């Protein structure tokens, strides 16, 4: 009876929660995961994974440990607590019962509510007609263009000599996507994309789009745990041996230091080379899981050609490639087109996992063969980089949970120079007062970085060792303190660093939430690295330090209007110079309940002395679109996003954004241009228009 009373109280406490939109539920995760990254993260795949749970919420009472661990919104401890609670008290009576678990506070539950449920319909794979009738279809198209057009497009209009490198297509970006989902059991779809300035329905793309991707995914059909056909991704352990999917770097989510990968999954993204193509399957026998995959596809590569006397007009024959572009995909110019599909890529591998009462252990092995050798242009810093056309990677990984301790790790060996990489970590939960994470990594300088996404300072899983300590402490009802400290070394040279180097990264944030309608945080980050400077006479390497201060507040005026304000500054210092950057923005978000129209906008001013002082900010964008904007200039940035729900099934997003760079006084009389090369635009103002339409057939 007391327990039921507690539940009623908890439910009552949630009754005043504001209704959040699908976009916001997803954006809150994306923002926290990617906020510290400098690399472009695959938002589409991450969003797709979350949308599946929005449309088919995870059943808290029926989900297996493996399913719970795979979702991006639960930490290992939360999963452990859910399983323990189910074991001790039986099924959850209502979702808010989660609040009795130490790792779940009001804010956490509020953020994950749309992704979980207790009353999901039990679907089974049986009759094809039933699958078709009960499944949902989604059509989505996004179109974007910017003004003024870039120099690469203007060349095409004004020059008769088209031998000059130029853009072949219009400034319009477009993608078209279709997907079908039958719960989380059956899924298939097609994705197509034309990047801005790529040709469409002509030239190299007579079928229209430059990129096509298709997939079919089947899960949990008896012992067959997974079958992937077409394009798919493979992710195992901590991402050292094989991960073709996304992996986030350091962030305010301290448990993010651990990867929760779970084998094969459908590839729904638009990164044009970052997937496997072929077949992958997984079977489960009691506690054992085994799987295998085969993939064959073509990759973009920067080919080195040998002249052929019989081919006077052409390039000749490719003999090697200086790189392979696993995240490439721009085919706007004749020279970019020569790189397209230049390399043939064959991969095959197997994995096995064994479940234990307190976790799991696994092993993965795969072979990759390219039809031409990879031969990077020789530089001292890339002396240990992989060279050749075939490699093998083997890894073993583990993930153990015992009470409030989670141990995880992976050891991997790549065949090139028999190099090793290893990562080992621990998450320790001392209840609400304190969570701690520790991660040690040691990535050999010859370790093959392709399709590896180990946790670390750089996005490269090689030539780095380090120790990371993260913490989160609930100081009181109103204050939370969190942060990390990361020490790292690079045993060999890096680009722009002509000697072995070291560095540190300290990040801390204090959050203040006095009321339900107001929250604020202050964040400080200081990162020290060594770099080579030509001007330096005293030593080969110099320490550079980047400090960042951020003050951010959110306040809700009423149930329909929310405001967000941010001030951020950065200081970049070397022993001989110091530069500053600052940015301030004001957001307005209008999302009245039950209204078909939602609006959000931003006014941002920035003053950036040096690109090293650039400041990133997260913007409201249409679902699936990339939300991180780089303030790398001094000037203004405004945007307005509208979402209109015509019917329950049809949503339209329209976004207008404008950047205006400050013109230096000595350029007042000139035609001021921004950008460089073919990307140059003859203006200090750039406008971007985005339209997205989604049609759902439930």
């Amino acid at each position, binding site marked *: 009876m007391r327990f039921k009373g507690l539940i009623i109280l908890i439910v009552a406490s949630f009754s005043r929660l504001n209704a959040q939109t699908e976009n916001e539920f997803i954006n809150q995760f994306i923002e926290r995961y990617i906020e510290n990254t400098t690399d472009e993260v695959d938002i589409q795949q991450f969003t797709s994974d979350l949308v599946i749970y929005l449309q088919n919420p995870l059943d808290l009472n029926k989900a297996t440990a493996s399913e719970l661990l795979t979702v991006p919104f639960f930490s290992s401890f939360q999963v452990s607590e859910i399983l323990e609670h189910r074991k001790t008290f039986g099924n959850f009576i209502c979702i808010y019962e989660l609040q009795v678990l130490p790792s779940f506070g009001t804010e956490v539950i509020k953020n994950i509510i749309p992704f979980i449920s207790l009353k999901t319909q039990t679907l089974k794979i049986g009759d094809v007609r039933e699958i078709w009738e009960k499944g949902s279809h989604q059509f989505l198209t996004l179109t974007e263009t910017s003004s003024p057009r870039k120099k690469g497009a203007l060349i095409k209009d004004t020059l008769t000599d088209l031998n000059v490198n130029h853009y072949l297509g219009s400034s319009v970006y477009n993608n078209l996507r279709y997907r079908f989902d039958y719960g989380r059991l059956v899924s298939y779809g097609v994705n197509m994309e034309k990047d801005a300035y790529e040709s469409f329905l002509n030239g190299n793309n007579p079928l229209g789009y430059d990129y096509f991707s298709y997939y079919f995914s089947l899960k949990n059909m008896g012992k067959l745990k997974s079958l992937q056909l077409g394009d798919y991704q493979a992710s195992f352990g901590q991402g050292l041996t094989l991960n073709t999917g996304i992996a986030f770097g350091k962030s305010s989510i301290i448990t993010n230091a651990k990867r929760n990968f779970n084998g094969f999954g459908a590839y729904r993204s638009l990164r044009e080379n970052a997937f496997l193509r072929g077949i992958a399957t997984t079977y489960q026998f009691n506690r054992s899981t085994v799987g295998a995959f085969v993939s064959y596809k073509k990759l973009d590569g920067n080919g080195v050609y040998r002249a052929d006397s019989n081919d006077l007009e052409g390039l000749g024959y490719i003999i090697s490639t200086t790189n392979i572009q696993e995240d490439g995909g721009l085919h706007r110019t004749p020279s970019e087109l020569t790189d397209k599909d230049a390399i043939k890529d064959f991969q095959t591998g197997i994995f096995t996992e064994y479940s234990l009462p307190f976790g799991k252990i696994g092993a993965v092995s795969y072979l990759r063969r390219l039809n031409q050798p990879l031969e990077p242009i020789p530089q001292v810093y890339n002396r240990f980089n992989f060279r050749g056309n075939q490699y093998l990677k083997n890894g073993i990984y583990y993930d153990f949970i015992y009470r409030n301790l989670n141990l995880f790790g992976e050891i991997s060996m790549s065949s090139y120079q028999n190099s090793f990489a290893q990562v080992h970590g621990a998450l320790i939960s001392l209840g609400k007062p304190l969570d701690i994470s520790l991660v040690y990594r040691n990535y050999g300088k010859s370790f093959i970085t392709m399709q590896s996404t180990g946790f670390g300072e750089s996005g490269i899983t090689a030539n780095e060792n380090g120790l990371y300590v993260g913490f989160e402490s609930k100081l009181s009802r109103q204050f939370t303190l969190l942060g990390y400290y990361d020490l790292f070394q690079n045993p060999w040279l890096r680009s722009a660093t002509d000697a072995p180097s070291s560095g540190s990264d300290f990040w801390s944030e204090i959050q203040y939430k006095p009321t339900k309608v107001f929250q604020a945080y202050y964040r400080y980050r200081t990162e020290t690295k060594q770099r080579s400077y030509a001007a330096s006479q005293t030593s080969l390497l110099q320490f550079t330090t980047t400090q960042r201060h951020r003050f951010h507040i959110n306040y809700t005026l009423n149930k329909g209007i929310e405001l967000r*304000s941010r*001030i951020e500054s950065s200081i970049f210092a070397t022993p001989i110079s110091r530069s500053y950057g*600052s940015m*301030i923005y004001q957001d307005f978000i209008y999302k009245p309940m039950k209204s078909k129209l939602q609006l959000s906008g931003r*006014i941002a001013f920035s*003053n950036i002395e040096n690109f090293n002082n650039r400041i990133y900010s997260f913007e409201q964008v249409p679902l699936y679109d990339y939300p991180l904007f780089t303030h790398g200039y*001094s000037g*203004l940035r405004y945007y307005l996003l509208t979402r209109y729900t015509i019917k329950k099934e049809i949503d339209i997003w329209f976004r207008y954004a404008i950047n205006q760079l400050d013109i230096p006084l000595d350029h*007042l009389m000139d035609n001021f241009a921004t950008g460089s090369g073919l990307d140059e635009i003859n203006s200090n103002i750039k406008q971007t228009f985005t339209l997205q339409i989604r049609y759902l057939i439930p």
Partner: protein
Amino acid sequence: MRKIGTILLLSVLTNLCIADLPSANNAITLSLGGASATYLNAFAIENNVAALAFSKAEFSLNAANRFGISDYSNLMAVYHHSIENTSIGFSYQVSPLASLTQQKAQVAVARKLNKDISAGVALNYHRFSSTDVYYQKRSTLTFNAGLYFQVNEKLTIGTQIFNPNRSELTRIPKERMGSVLKLGTNYKLGHNIELYADALQATDRKLAIHAGVELSKEHYTFRGGFGLNQLVALGFGWKSSNLKIDIAASYHNQLGFSPSVNVGHAF
């Protein structure tokens, strides 16, 4: 030569425009180091127009000088009146320099959206008269819009944007008025101690931080503040039931003293 001269003049004009935007000249704002986005008085028409909605009706005059240079003087008159939840305000200011005279007239309206929140907007007319034969006289319209939010009994937040559309002064070459976005906060430390802090980003300027403290004792008020642009300030205020007098002086470590005085009548 003419081009260089024009650019130099533009440079001076731009600097003056931007320097003038937060109008740290009135004695109260000056004495708080420039932190004024949450201060409640008639000068809110400049500092954060939304705060007018929570301010008491008032007519005030301000006379200020910058750095002891006679050409750098400023006179300003403000009036504001409230009817229920809506306030209207007017201001006029003139900065008579030898080579450049700036005049600015404002009309503003602010409204309480509920017991804790207000919003406001002011329309500004700027006129610049220069002795330069090329420049002569220019005028333009700008606006500023703000929000004021009492989070709880102790904490208040204010934000204001000035001239987001970057109004044009001259077409060729394209010279525009600067824009400013600022965010301020007020925290009541005790019964008679209040802290103020503003962050302000103007186009083509570094982030500016201003902070000040105000201590009140019956009819008297003491204020002190600083700006990270090497400025410290002190001020003193006295008020009776209707009359208010505030004086302040700031010191810049390179440019020297700037005095300011307000005389106001509350209704």
